[in-house]
């Protein structure tokens, strides 16, 4: 894992001390709220419905056991014993008190963590594939480049006050697990003409009020010139992005209005001017950072395969866990294990202090001290030997997080919604729970197969509803919660925005509505191998609309 160098450590300490002083001045009245708000937001501190909310950055979703233990301690000491993992691979604490926040930040700094780049119109925390550095299908580990982007963006003086927030996602695998086409910039590893590895660059993707799939702006940029190319994009955006209208300020609108060809020309012009300047990334520097992400010292494992058919008979729950919650690893005899933070009827992404500590212990014992947070609000133990799978599974059974449901209908993304969020128009969590309960039977989930449900409590779309195979958006219709259903969204490399099926429905009716869509799919699919999203692509939205609303 990356270790802070002296500069990083000094910078985070300095920011923590600065913020402690700002809090002191706010409380003494030297600063009023208008002066303080931008300062607290720059340190990840929001005010929500019930209390402050502190959003802590987990850069590119990578955590050590020690860091997760510290998050557990913070939850216990300063909060209410739980935290919420978000679709930005971060963690949020819902109940901190203003006086405690400087102490929390100091304790985070001790384990090389902070809450910078989690708010404001800056380049936000970079996100990536949760299986980065472990996945069998990976062309390159994206974390060294993600770390370099973090270092470039954290203190970038030119890009501290962009027209709007700016999100970059990066994947080193052809199978996109980081939703790169729904970010302001998405980077996807690619092998270049001479066999060298570089990046395809997408720009102008996003969700929210105006969902858009990013457009390819450049087919290939090598490592050496990547930062210069990113800087060129940011410069064009900073200059031409709209500052007159918050809802039109994201780069997706600029790309949409000006056209990708115009933006590409402008970016290329900037790029040509700075290509070989100070942002050129020397190979030695890339090598230095890459060394921090070296693969762990894998052991020789005895077990190379698992007899799943037999296990399905002798221990079906463990078999399900293996089938759904393990991902192929590049190293023989190893897998990445997804710890589903979606127990049946639970709050998606929530973890108690005890659960966090237990998972940290498992990571320390069985995954070389490494952990990941996925944008689907799960945790990952990236390097688990098949020999140790049983022990990991049993450890998770002890903390009620052994549900073998990754990628199934109960593995639901949900934002906090109106239970916590000041911007919400409806609740999300109770909807997620009621769907999870309705489809709790493992056999039913297995019958349905891969299906991603994503729920947002307002149009801001933190719950990624636009890209759910089934998406649910909570709205307020004359004071009553109302849920709009979309079908056909996809966050993967086959990126698509879902289609709204019709008028919104009441919250209590949502689980039954989902069942109608699921039943239609099962009835119409060509075989059990045709997934929900594949069937939707073949059938179109009409039959789904009819299943939900009847013929009109």
């Amino acid at each position, binding site marked *: 894992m990356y270790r802070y160098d002296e500069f990083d450590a000094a910078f985070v300490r300095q920011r923590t001390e600065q913020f402690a002083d700002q809090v002191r001045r*706010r*409380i003494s*009245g030297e600063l*009023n*709220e208008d002066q303080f708000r931008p300062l607290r937001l720059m340190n990840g501190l929001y*005010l*929500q*419905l*019930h*209390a*402050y909310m502190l959003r802590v950055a987990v850069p590119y979703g990578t955590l050590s056991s020690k860091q997760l233990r510290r998050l557990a301690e913070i939850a216990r000491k300063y909060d*209410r014993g739980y935290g919420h993992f978000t679709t930005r691979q971060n963690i949020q604490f819902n*109940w*901190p*008190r*203003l*006086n405690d926040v400087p102490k929390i930040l100091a304790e985070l700094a001790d384990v090389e963590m902070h809450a910078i780049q989690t708010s404001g119109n800056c380049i936000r925390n970079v996100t990536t594939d949760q299986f980065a550095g472990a996945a069998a299908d990976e062309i390159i580990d994206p974390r060294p480049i993600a770390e370099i982007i973090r270092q470039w963006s954290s203190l970038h003086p030119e890009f501290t006050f962009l027209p709007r927030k700016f999100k970059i996602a990066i994947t080193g695998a052809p199978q996109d697990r980081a939703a790169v086409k729904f970010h302001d910039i998405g980077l996807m590893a690619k092998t270049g003409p001479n066999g060298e590895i570089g990046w395809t660059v997408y720009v102008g993707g996003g969700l929210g009020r105006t969902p858009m799939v990013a457009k390819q702006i450049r087919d290939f940029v090598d490592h050496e010139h990547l930062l210069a190319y990113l800087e060129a994009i940011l410069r064009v955006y900073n200059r031409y992005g709209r500052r007159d209208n918050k809802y039109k300020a994201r780069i997706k609108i600029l790309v949409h209005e000006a056209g990708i060809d115009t933006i590409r020309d402008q970016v290329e012009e900037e790029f040509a001017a700075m290509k070989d300047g100070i942002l050129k990334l020397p190979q030695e520097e890339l090598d230095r950072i890459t060394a921090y992400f070296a693969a762990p010292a894998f052991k020789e494992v005895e077990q190379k395969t698992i007899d799943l058919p037999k296990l399905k008979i002798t221990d079906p729950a463990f078999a399900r866990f293996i089938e759904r919650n393990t991902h192929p690893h590049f190293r023989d005899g190893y897998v990445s294990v997804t710890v589903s933070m979606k127990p049946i009827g639970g*709050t998606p992404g929530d973890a108690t202090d005890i659960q966090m500590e237990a998972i940290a212990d498992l990571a320390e014992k069985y995954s070389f001290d490494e952990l990941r947070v996925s944008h689907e609000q799960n945790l990952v133990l990236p390097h688990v030997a098949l020999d140790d799978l049983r022990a990991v599974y049993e450890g998770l059974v002890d903390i009620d997080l052994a549900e073998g449901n990754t990628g199934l209908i109960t593995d639901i993304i949900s934002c906090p919604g*109106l*239970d*916590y969020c*000041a911007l*919400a128009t409806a*609740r999300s*969590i*109770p909807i997620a*729970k009621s769907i999870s309960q309705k489809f709790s039977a493992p056999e039913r989930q297995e019958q349905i197969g891969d299906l991603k449900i994503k729920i947002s409590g307002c149009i801001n779309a933190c719950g990624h509803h636009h890209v759910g195979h089934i998406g649910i958006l909570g709205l*307020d219709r004359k*004071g*009553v*919660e109302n849920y709009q259903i979309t079908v056909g969204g996809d966050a993967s490399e086959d990126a698509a925005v879902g289609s709204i099926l019709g008028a919104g429905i009441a919250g209590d009716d949502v689980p039954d509505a989902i069942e109608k869509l699921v039943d239609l799919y099962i009835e119409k699919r060509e075989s059990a191998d045709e997934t929900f999203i594949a069937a939707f692509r073949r059938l179109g939205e009409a039959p789904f609309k009819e299943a939900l609303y009847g013929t009109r």
Partner: protein
Amino acid sequence: MDIITANELLSGATVYLTVDGKWLEEVSKAQTFGPEDKAARDAAVEAANASGRYLSVEIEKAEIIDGRVVPTRLREKIRAEGPTSPRHTPQTLDTPHAKGEDSNVSL
């Protein structure tokens, strides 16, 4: 009728302006303002903002049901009672300052 709500500076807790000019967590103790009290209501909002101790000061609609003040909007009900699923109690004011004497906003 209207009530006035805010988040208290130190705790972030949801608070309501009460009849005796204090800011407390219980919506049931909130002072209500009818149409004829508009000037007093607006003055209270202004004073709360000027105090610097209360954030997101808002006027909310409320009704009296069985003799108790109940906010009209679902959002406000959730603010008053805490998250619904799982149920958590609302944040409390727990510091001498927040509970204390200088939390009065003069009407």
